[in-house]
């Protein structure tokens, strides 16, 4: 009974939210152009299934492209920053400062450089999602136990040896944890850029729907983004569990 409840709980919460939303719309007789009821959103979703899917695919691929760049760049910067105290001190303020800039403010700059379309969206997704990867990889590397480093150094291990044998494997749980955060941020980035500067993607779809007061379609777009985010998050949570099971061991499993 108890495990079943735990499994069903997230679905129940979502169902309850939609139900409450529907009841509020009905009960207060809220006009559709302010807040459409879930049933109206569902209706539009079914009617406009094909264009929604087309835009969703665009957003999905844009997000994945930006995320992939973020993973590669984040891993490289994180490795550099985490394995050198000098670089750590030197780069951190710059990285933090850069991360504090709202990325939506950066989209116009990207548009000037690359024009309207997919490229600014990919780059925005990348810019918004690489920071957690950098921070986590750097933290994983920088918190290496000094004794362990001594053991290896006394054997004549080079810095590259230490990084490959101990640093990176040890940083992997941090890295995979950051992927979960980064993928959801990447969706934020690509949708922001699409609303401002694109004629494709869920962001664009929502923008054009809201300008014609088609609120059910706007909400359909929001829900599609949410679903994609949850699915990708769960996917990376699964990957994390698979790859770094040793870090998530059951405490009762020890002999």
């Amino acid at each position: 009974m108890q495990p079943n409840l735990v499994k069903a709980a997230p679905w129940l919460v979502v169902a309850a939210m939609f139900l409450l939303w529907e009841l509020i719309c009905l009960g207060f007789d809220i006009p559709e152009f302010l807040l459409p009821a879930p049933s109206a959103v569902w209706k539009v979703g079914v009617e406009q299934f094909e264009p929604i899917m087309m835009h969703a695919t665009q957003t999905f691929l844009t997000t994945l492209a930006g995320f992939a760049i973020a993973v590669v760049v984040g891993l490289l910067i994180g490795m550099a920053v985490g394995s050198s105290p000098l670089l750590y001190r030197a780069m951190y303020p710059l990285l933090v400062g850069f991360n504090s800039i709202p990325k939506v403010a950066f989209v116009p700059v990207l548009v000037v450089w690359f024009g309207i379309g997919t490229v600014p969206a990919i780059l925005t997704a990348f810019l918004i999602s690489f920071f957690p990867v950098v921070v986590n990889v750097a933290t994983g590397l920088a918190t290496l136990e000094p004794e362990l480093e001594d053991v290896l150094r006394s054997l004549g291990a080079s810095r590259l040896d230490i990084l490959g044998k101990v640093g990176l494997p040890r940083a992997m749980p941090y890295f995979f944890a950051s992927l979960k955060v980064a993928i959801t941020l990447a969706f934020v980035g690509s949708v922001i850029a699409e609303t401002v500067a694109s004629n494709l993607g869920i962001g664009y779809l929502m923008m054009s729907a809201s300008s014609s007061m088609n609120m059910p379609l706007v909400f359909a777009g929001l829900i599609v983004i949410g679903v994609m985010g949850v699915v990708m998050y769960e996917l990376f949570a699964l990957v994390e569990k698979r790859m770094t099971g040793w870090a998530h061991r059951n405490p009762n499993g020890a002999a």
Partner: protein
Amino acid sequence: MSFVKFENVDLAYAPGGALAIEDVSLDVREGEFVAVVGPSGCGKSTLMKLISGLRMPSGGYVYVDGRQVGGPLKIVGMAFQNANLLPWRTTLDNVMLPLEIVEPYRSTLKKERSRYEAEARQLLARVGLAGFEDKFPWELSGGMQQRASICRALIHQPRLLMLDEPFGALDAFTREELWCMLRDLWQLQPFTVILVTHDLREAVFLADTVYVMSKRPGRILVRREIELPRPRDLDVTYTDAFAGYVHELREHIGRVRAT
């Protein structure tokens, strides 16, 4: 001829700062079992860093095997109070780690893997870890982890084994078991051991020579040879001769603390 030699060694961690150890001179011959005891914070661990070449002395000279130490030595194995096994590797793979770094094993590891693996299994069996080779470190008890850690320090057959309070975190019974394990390993195939500890019974039971260090800055106060016959059995720890050594060393430590 001495294997490890310190000549008037000083070390300050920060240039011009307070000395961690001061004017330390000692001589260790090949195959000798040396214990260094002293109050905590007396620079015992600093001594280990100097010998292994992880730190350069601020003054004086450190020689190992007739040569002045100028960088990390590859003939050294190390183990610490914390076993520091890698949680993503099995016990066997943890023990094999040095072979992936030290020559000539490093370049022959691919070809001779099965032979090295057999050697590692044999070493693990010798310390009582047969059957645990493929378990992960977190599936082992603290004492077992420490056994594996010492195997890792010995797998590349170092000529010098350095132990920094390796049994400090274990309970009294496990600790005595591990004394015997270390004694047996050393007796089977002698190598030079430098054991840093604050357990006087441990020092007297295992070592040929015990050095007592003073409070910071650490200086060598006493060098005492332990002339108990070998092989030593745990029973020796209940003899008067043993108690005499412990008592004598204890008095020196007491004097260190009083001043």
